[in-house]
């Protein structure tokens, strides 16, 4: 690797419409007014940062791009300061375009259907209660660091068949790839190498002793010609499942608890009407969608009447689409019984999140078990909430006081 970049400090943004930057502290802290400003200016905005990047600001423009795999490639899916050479089998199917995408995606879908998730649910409820047992007597907790974070980590570790006790290792890799890696490529490469080495060990073990988990499932998978997958494909998909499944859902659970901590009326309603929970989860996913994806423009085209030039990246903000008032009445309000909700939190088009059913189940279980045992809670006024930087947004520090406010 010859072109490993050094981290570069970004100048603060003063002109959001012509110079946006999703790593700016103001965006990290409160992106919603920024998105409104950008949407009012144009359905597609552009920045010279990140070697050139567009951002669709409306639901319709996001949909157009998500459905256009001819002009918008998924070969690069993180907007970063550099454009290193493309790796083969980076993380299929999320980094795949047609025609390679479909077989890679279909391979991963069966273990993640709603029925498959139902079988996992009892384990998830037990995990949530074990975590609550660990802090409920303390009277306060960092709900991001001690609850939200460990639910998806332990779920995906359970599915992959790797020790749940390695959770902190996975969390560190994800931090290096999704946060530090945006500006410091060496951190990203180091994490990818460490993950691959970790999974190689687990693959080796399963060659003599097959197991009933996702690692063995991928090792035994066959392509259309009946051939096993290349090792790089298996490793790429394993890295994807680990990365994609964790800080995304951690963020969604954290944002939901943050909302409920400061909205007693919604909390009380969910306790009184437990059947409303699935609808509420969809609304929390809409209002606090964690995941922003990216595409690379590979052919000149136009989106919502705006010209788009090849060679630029696209920041594909599903969270901003979900705040478009043209699509969602009262888009800036959380309406926990919203009936019509075509939110794009899990993406649109062929790259719909493979783990959407898992994420929904985890969110529902995490909120239900929390509310059963902690019906009253509030943000700790003596501490501050901090948010992650980059392409996955959620609280990273969420200090909460348990019990009725004094």
């Amino acid at each position, binding site marked *: 690797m010859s072109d490993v970049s050094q981290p570069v400090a970004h100048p603060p943004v003063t002109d959001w419409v012509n110079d946006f930057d999703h790593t700016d502290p103001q965006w990290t802290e409160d992106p919603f007014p920024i998105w409104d400003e950008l949407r009012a200016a144009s359905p597609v905005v552009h920045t010279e940062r990140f070697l050139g990047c567009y951002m669709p600001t409306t639901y319709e423009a996001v949909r157009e791009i998500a459905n256009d795999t001819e002009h918008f490639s998924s070969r690069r899916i993180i907007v970063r300061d550099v454009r290193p050479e493309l790796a083969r089998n980076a993380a299929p199917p999320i980094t795949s375009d047609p025609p390679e995408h479909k077989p890679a995606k*279909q391979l991963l*879908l069966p273990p993640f259907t*709603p029925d498959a998730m139902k079988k996992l649910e009892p384990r998830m409820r037990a995990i949530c209660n074990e975590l609550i047992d660990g802090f409920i007597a303390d009277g306060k907790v960092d709900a991001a660091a001690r609850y939200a974070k460990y639910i998806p980590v332990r779920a995906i570790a359970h599915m992959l068949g790797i020790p749940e006790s390695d959770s902190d290792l996975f969390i560190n890799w994800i931090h290096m790839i999704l946060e530090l890696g945006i500006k410091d490529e060496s951190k990203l490469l180091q994490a990818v190498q460490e993950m691959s080495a970790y999974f190689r060990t687990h693959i080796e073990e399963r060659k003599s002793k097959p197991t009933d988990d996702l690692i063995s499932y991928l090792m035994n998978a066959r392509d259309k010609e009946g051939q096993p997958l290349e090792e790089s494909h298996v490793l790429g998909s394993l890295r994807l499942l680990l990365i994609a499944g964790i800080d995304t859902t951690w963020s969604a659970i954290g944002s939901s608890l943050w909302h409920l901590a400061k909205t007693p009326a919604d909390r009380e309603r969910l306790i009184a009407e437990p059947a409303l929970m*699935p609808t509420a989860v969809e609304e929390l996913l809409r209002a606090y969608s964690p995941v922003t994806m990216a595409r690379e423009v590979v052919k000149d085209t136009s989106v919502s009447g705006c010209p788009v030039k090849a060679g630029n990246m696209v920041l594909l903000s599903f969270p901003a689409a979900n705040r478009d008032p043209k699509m969602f009445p009262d888009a800036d309000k959380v309406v926990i019984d919203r009936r019509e909700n075509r939110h794009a939190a899990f993406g649109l088009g062929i790259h719909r999140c493979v783990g959407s059913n898992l994420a929904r189940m985890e969110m529902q279980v995490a909120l239900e078990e929390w509310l059963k045992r902690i019906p009253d809670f509030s943000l700790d006024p003596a501490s501050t909430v901090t948010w992650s930087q980059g392409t996955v947004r959620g609280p990273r520090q969420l200090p909460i006081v348990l019990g009725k406010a004094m």
Partner: protein
Amino acid sequence: MTERLRVHVDPDKCQGHARCKALAPELFELDEFGNAHEAGDGTVPPGLEDKAWLAKSNCPEIAIDVIEE
């Protein structure tokens, strides 16, 4: 006279969000990949009309048609 409804999922548009199955389990089924299709010939039994419309209005891919017959 009450009109009869029929639901139909466009398999080329469905991406397996499974919102229809969650909202109207009587009217939709999922295949092994989690992609949806209408149950049987898609006829909506009396009393489930509201669920048919709800499924349509929550499909992110606009893949569901409700046909009034």
